[in-house]
């Protein structure tokens, strides 16, 4: 047993966060895709190889995930092969325990494929499959709320995790470390949709960027923010389209002199007419109307409520005695949590929606992307982890059923807690 390594792999639809529990302080963040350059050398990059790519125009993406579910195993296997190889993690599956994440409400037939892939194709010594929000709550949640009195520093009984990732956003309430399955809610909006939406409006209004997913994702990450007063910001932009504090001038990369775009200082007066050959993208109301979709999916015609409303919906699906505890222990994770103003907006909107007798507290980890991985690292050192593991020999004897039994998160006793 001493030789065994534990590999924690948060298998996100956009990036894989992977590293050994005992040896790494930080995970490697690896794109979960196979990218082919459409022009020129037609080179293909798998997973981490993408970091050697310097020309981001005209890329074709092959993603193993479709709407958040792992559907293309051919691509995923190529990426995992690469990650387990000597070049990246140097993993010998037969001597390794794997802790891997799956989406909430993963389909049973897809789960079977996980089991077969991990035990029969890769032959891992043992493995545990769980959802990323559950790994998140293995962290020290109370440290996210610095103003809390010391005597409450022990882990809270109720936590509500809002995981806003690449494919969708999940709201997952936990009681005593277990998810309340009937109260989990999903909003079909994630980072991918936001990038595609930005790409579309920019292509319609300014430059044709439809083929430039990579560049537009960078623009989104650099310029976009969550507005605290949406209508006021909109009015600011409308009144003066070229001279307002919201407008940003983003210099697009041309892949010969600059491979990375950046925000340039605004030009004033006569400078506006200077003859520089930079291609500039003026980001005006696009800066905040794009992340706004997380809060109002109806802005693009999607018939779903936004994050704050759905938090309320999820909490209302739990036992009334627990509502106050959930409002006071909300954790925001996932890539979309990196938008500036995101936490403040969730807090602000929720304060309006929540019953006035409850305190609303929203916490956000320092790195919302790797938070689940860090939780997984914590979990791997607990005795509970060994109980949850299914070994390869158990699998060979009992088949996928043993995985179903051991990895199942919501017990019957939890269903009684919900309404």
């Amino acid at each position, binding site marked *: 047993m001493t030789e065994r390594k534990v590999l924690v792999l948060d298998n996100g639809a956009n990036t894989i966060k992977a590293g050994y529990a005992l040896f790494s302080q930080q995970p490697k963040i690896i794109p979960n895709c196979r990218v082919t350059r459409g022009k020129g050398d037609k080179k293909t990059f798998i997973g981490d190889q993408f970091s050697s790519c310097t020309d981001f125009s005209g890329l074709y993406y092959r993603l193993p995930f479709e709407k958040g579910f792992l559907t293309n195993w051919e691509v995923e296997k190529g990426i995992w092969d690469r990650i387990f190889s000597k070049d990246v993690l140097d993993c010998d599956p037969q001597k390794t325990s794997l802790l891997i994440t799956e989406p909430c409400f993963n389909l049973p037939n897809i789960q079977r494929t996980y089991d077969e892939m991990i035990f029969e194709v890769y032959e891992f010594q043992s493995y545990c499959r769980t959802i990323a929000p559950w790994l998140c709550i293995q962290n020290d949640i109370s440290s996210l709320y610095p103003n809390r009195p010391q005597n409450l520093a022990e882990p809270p009984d109720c936590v509500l995790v809002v995981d806003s990732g690449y494919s969708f956003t999940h709201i997952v309430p936990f009681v005593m470390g277990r998810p309340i399955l009937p109260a989990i809610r999903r909003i079909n909006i994630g980072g991918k949709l936001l990038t595609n939406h930005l790409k579309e409006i920019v292509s319609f209004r300014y430059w044709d960027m439809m083929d430039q997913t990579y560049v537009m994702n960078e623009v989104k990450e650099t310029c976009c923010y969550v507005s605290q007063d949406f209508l006021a910001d909109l009015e600011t932009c409308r009144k003066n389209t070229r001279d307002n504090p919201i407008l940003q001038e983003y210099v697009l990369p041309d892949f010969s002199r600059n491979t990375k775009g950046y925000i340039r200082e605004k030009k004033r007066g006569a400078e506006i007419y200077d003859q520089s050959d930079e291609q500039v993208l003026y980001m005006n109301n*696009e800066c905040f*109307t794009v992340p706004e979709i997380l809060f109002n999916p*109806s802005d693009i015609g999607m018939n779903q409520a936004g994050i704050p409303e759905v938090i309320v919906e999820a909490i209302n699906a739990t036992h009334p005695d627990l509502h106050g505890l959930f409002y006071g222990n909300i954790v925001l994770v996932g890539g979309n949590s990196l938008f500036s103003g995101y936490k403040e907006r969730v807090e602000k909107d929720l304060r309006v929606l929540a019953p006035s007798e409850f305190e609303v507290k929203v916490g956000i980890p320092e790195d919302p992307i790797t938070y689940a991985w860090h939780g997984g690292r914590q979990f791997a050192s607990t005795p509970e982890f060994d109980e949850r593991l299914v070994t390869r020999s158990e699998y060979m004897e009992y088949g996928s059923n043993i995985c179903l039994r051991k990895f199942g998160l919501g017990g019957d006793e939890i269903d009684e807690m919900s309404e």
Partner: protein
Amino acid sequence: MKHKVILDQTTRNRNIQHHLNELERDNYAEVPELEIVSGTITKPRRTSEVDTSQNRKTKARSKKQLLSQLTVKKNLNALLEESRIDQLPPDIPTYFTAVAGPSRYPPRKFCSVCGYLSNYSCKTCGMRYCSVKCLEIHEETRCMKYTV
């Protein structure tokens, strides 16, 4: 005079749904065939080194078979159907039951051209616009071009 088509609500809703599906695309253009070259993929790690040659052969073959079974590409809709979770009783939480409900507030209306608040919708296709200027751009570039 040319007969003008006016889309009914069902078609308009379908167009909105079509647009939402478009926003889930991985690539704007279709992936060209050249991509299928597999030469660059790293070889899977050999794990069964202690086996006898006879054993290894059968094991390798069955593994290969399994792998080819597992890597058959199925799209999510096919998998959803195959999983039969739609046939479970409604009190068992699944992918379908977890979907968040609609907002209790009415949707806000934005101009499809400039993105600011809009008070009007196109008579023909139902997309929003805010001014005569935006309506002109809309008619020139977008109106009735979303229809499949």
